[in-house]
């Protein structure tokens, strides 16, 4: 190891600082935009410093979602919808994947590999390529405008199943043997040994899947025709609408900021698990 240098080279700092600034640039504008009134944004001469209307804009967005030209569902409702969707998708994916991985890893039964491959192949069928027929299935089942329709078609997960199977393969046979000698059945072993051992993987996957659920776009766009069922990401785009200067940009930017806070907070505060989950989920 080289002795610690007294001074850092300046080029990396310059490049990284520039990167950080460019990355934060749109966020800065969104924050500024949400503190001015719609009229002064519409003139195109918005000040680059915070304006005086921040509190009222956010209050208006959260409670009514309506401006002089924008009419929308209150952002409060949109946030709750997004939260329900993201949590259901994340928890659902983890739950059904961990039990199916457990079945594949710890049992021997006819069709084991067939079922495993059946789950694996879904990796190649992202929702976007089968949207119209899937939409039709959901319509036929009467699940339009329901949280079930919004979430259940997304909760099968080949990635999570593969990951949990990988984790389970590292559990030594001796542990299983010891549990069996102590008289533990398959479910007891699952609750007392497997689940605690998978804790960090569950946390890591949760971060990734929460963001996946929160950021869904095409699917909620199709499934929600009732505006009170929309997620926040859909809500913003509907607010933009024709996107002329006459739009209430202050409300839109406030909504955008509110839409970013939960997933960004999850990434920043659960950073350790996020990086772990990201790198592992893709292996």
């Amino acid at each position, binding site marked *: 190891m080289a002795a610690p240098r007294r001074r850092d080279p300046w080029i*990396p700092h310059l490049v990284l600082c520039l990167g950080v600034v460019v990355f934060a640039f749109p966020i800065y*504008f969104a924050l500024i935009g949400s503190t001015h009134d719609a009229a002064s944004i519409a*003139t195109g001469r918005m000040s680059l410093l915070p304006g005086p209307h921040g509190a009222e804009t956010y209050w208006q967005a959260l409670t009514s979602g309506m401006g002089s030209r924008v009419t929308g569902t209150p952002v409060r409702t949109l946030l709750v919808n997004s939260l329900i969707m993201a949590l259901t998708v994340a928890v659902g994916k983890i739950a059904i994947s961990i039990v199916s991985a457990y079945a*594949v890893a710890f049992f021997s039964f006819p069709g084991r590999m067939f079922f495993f491959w059946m789950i694996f192949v879904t990796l190649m069928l992202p929702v976007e390529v089968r949207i119209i027929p899937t939409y039709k299935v*959901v319509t036929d089942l009467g699940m339009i405008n329901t949280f079930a329709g919004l979430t259940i078609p997304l909760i099968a*997960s080949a990635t999570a199943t593969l990951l949990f199977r990988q984790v389970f393969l590292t559990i030594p046979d001796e542990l299983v043997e010891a549990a069996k000698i102590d008289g533990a059945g398959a479910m007891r072993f699952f609750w007392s040994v497997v689940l605690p051992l998978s804790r960090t993987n569950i946390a890591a996957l949760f971060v990734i899947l929460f963001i996946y659920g929160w950021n869904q776009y095409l699917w909620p766009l199709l499934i929600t025709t009732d505006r009170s069922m929309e997620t926040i990401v859909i809500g913003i*785009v509907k607010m933009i609408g024709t996107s002329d200067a006459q739009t209430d*940009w202050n409300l839109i930017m406030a909504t955008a900021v509110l839409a970013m806070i939960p997933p960004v907070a999850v990434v920043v505060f659960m950073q350790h698990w996020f990086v772990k989950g990201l790198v592992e989920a893709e292996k």
Partner: protein
Amino acid sequence: MRRRVIFSNTLLPYVLLAPQLLVTLVFFYWPALQAIYQSVLLQDPFGLRTRFVWFENFQLLFADPLYLGSARVTAVFSVAVASLSMGIALLFAVMADRKIRGARIYRTLLMWPYAVAPAVAASLWLFIFHPDIGFLGRLLNQAGLAWDYKLNGTQALLLVILAASWKQVSYNFLFFLAGLQAIPRSVIEAASMDAGPGRTFRSIVFPLLSPTTFFLLVVNLVYAFFDTFGVIHATTGGGPAKATETLIYKVYVDGVMNLDLGGSSAQSVILMAIVIALTAVQFRFIERKVHY
């Protein structure tokens, strides 16, 4: 792989698999088969009569200048997004991999855009590049560049490329950083005895990173193909004059707006084939570990 010690329940494994299999069958296999089935049928505009037409829908697509145009847009768009976001990410990763103060802070400040939804990212950039009210949009117009993404197809494409890449850099950055940190220090130190930093990077670091690069290339192409629907829907709506209508956007327009089931299903089948090909290439590559 198989364990030596297993549980001997006969019914339980099926019960455990049931929820996943049920969702998979109802929402994955059945719709995928429907797409394939619909893709060989032709429906009259009123949905009254349907007849079997073999591959006519596909032939029509490949003869359709609009579809070929959309394929071209997709190619330009995804290559641009992948190379732009991977190039910038690699630069940041190489810089952040050094032993500099605050490396962890930089990492945090560069990774959060991953959490921003593509459609939200697009609306942020729209606010900046809007020709009338956007800060940079107005600046460009004042400089006499006639910036208006709603009229100019090239500018519209640039805008969606920018928004889609901005969001994707952080993902690539984290993977490149992980890849760089997996390279043994001793290798790099040995190389830097004989060569400058540029040469070391070209001859040692970049080749050792090739599995990461290749993996990211596939992931970024898939991202550009499918996940950017929100970016396009939020900003340009595929316009002007279809200049930003990618393949996935066209499936949506033809299937949902124009209700052309056969044509839209044929497009879905083509997209499925693309995903399967990309996934197969990726797995084959990882298995072979081509990097040495």
